[in-house]
């Protein structure tokens, strides 16, 4: 009887542990990165405004050059969903409105993590996002998602 009770408790405990266990990589798969000399504090709202092309400078007043990723890529879809809070189509319609009224220049698109990391490492104005595994000492992580 007691043994049965204990094994049931154990079983329930195991289920709870399994349900609450989330692999680390789910919590922070990707990283938003800037140049190491860029010490400005960025929160999610700042990053969102930068990629919505609503602001042209970092909170400390320095010029900002966001880097976009290839349309349809997993990392871009995840970034737009989690950080910007919209989807690729809505973002595209919104950017189209700004672009074809001459308000903005669209961010340049880079194809892979290595290109983003090296561009961010070279240009103090740039801000991009890469897989957390691709982060090097040449860049500074400001946010993970």
């Amino acid at each position, binding site marked *: 009887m007691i043994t049965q009770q204990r094994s049931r408790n154990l079983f329930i405990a195991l289920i709870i542990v399994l349900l609450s266990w989330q692999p680390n990589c789910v919590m922070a798969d990707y990283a938003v990165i800037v140049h190491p000399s860029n010490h400005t504090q960025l929160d999610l709202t700042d990053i969102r405004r930068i990629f919505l092309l609503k602001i042209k400078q970092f909170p400390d007043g320095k010029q900002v050059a966001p880097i976009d990723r290839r349309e349809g890529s997993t990392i871009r879809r995840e970034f737009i969903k989690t950080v910007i809070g919209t989807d690729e*189509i809505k973002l*595209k319609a919104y950017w189209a409105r700004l672009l074809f*009224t*001459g308000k903005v220049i669209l961010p340049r698109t880079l194809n892979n993590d290595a290109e983003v990391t090296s561009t961010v490492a070279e240009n103090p104005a740039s801000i991009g996002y890469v897989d957390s595994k691709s982060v090097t000492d040449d860049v500074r992580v400001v946010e993970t998602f």
Partner: protein
Amino acid sequence: MECRRLRLLTPALGLLTSANLFATDFHFSGFATAAGGKTLDSETVYVVDPTTQGAYNNDFRFEPESMMGLQVQALISNELRATLQLVAKGGDDFSAKADWAFITYDITPKLSVNAGRYRLPTFYYSESLDVGYSYYWIRPPVEVYRIFTATLDGVNLYYSSFFGSMEIITQAWFGSNETDFVSPHPITGDVAINADTTRNLGLNTTLGWDWLKLRLVYNVGDITVTATPPPASGAPIQVVDSNITFLGAALMSDLGAFKWRSEYTQSDNEGDDSSRSWYASAAYSLGALTPHFTHAVEKAREPPFDFNRTTNTLGVAWYFTRSAVIKFEYAKSKRDTAIESSDLELVSTAVDIVF
């Protein structure tokens, strides 16, 4: 919309000084709409584009709203750039015209001055009216979007900033514009119209929060309209020569999958003419499909041509790939004058792409 970049370096100068100063980045982009439609009754004509007088009739037509636009932006320096947008519209026999041709100088990161030709930012979608991809209709309601002066030649200021969580965008403009178009007339035949807008001055402000946008606009200008009927019918007639004032307000909301779009506008000129127009529209995104419904009303007091028009539009926009949307709409419109009342039904479809 994936801009192609072309980097032109002046090699000799590049050796002498910093490469950036003498390098120009060119960004190319474009948009296109292939549209078609017809009215469901042989007597009726429905004008869908006030600038070209593009209109649907009882035959299935592709010209009225099909168009293509190409844009090039030249980045001269961090603060200075030039934008040229050529648009070829079916309603205009696909002859390309520059809707945008201007130079931008960023005075500060929040304030820029533009000089040249630009689209008049009268209503919420006026500036991006040619870019069907930027809204869910085939065309924003013509009851409100009915001004034939679409562009202005002059200067404007653009200010964009945040105050806490509130975004504020303000535009102020001054300029003039002369435009010619042909208006079909059932009795006299085609009438050539010349509209000359001078001393046009305006201001708009958009306040934006996370899910809500409120926009106000004021525009005033002197307008002279001259109509030239076919040679047999007589000499040019000056139909309008007055000072016109536009006032408008827009309330837009995006709450999750739900979208609300509404605008009100009134125009008054020194004479007796005035008009009041508004629309209210709701849409709901179901994955790639966005069904929508719009109710639009126009009350024109232009003695002796007073009329009221009410249009209900039911439609769906299907974003079948990231770069293209296909749209279907059915509109039922009722027009009343002092002496008669007429109904009209329009079916139309469009594919909008951006590249």
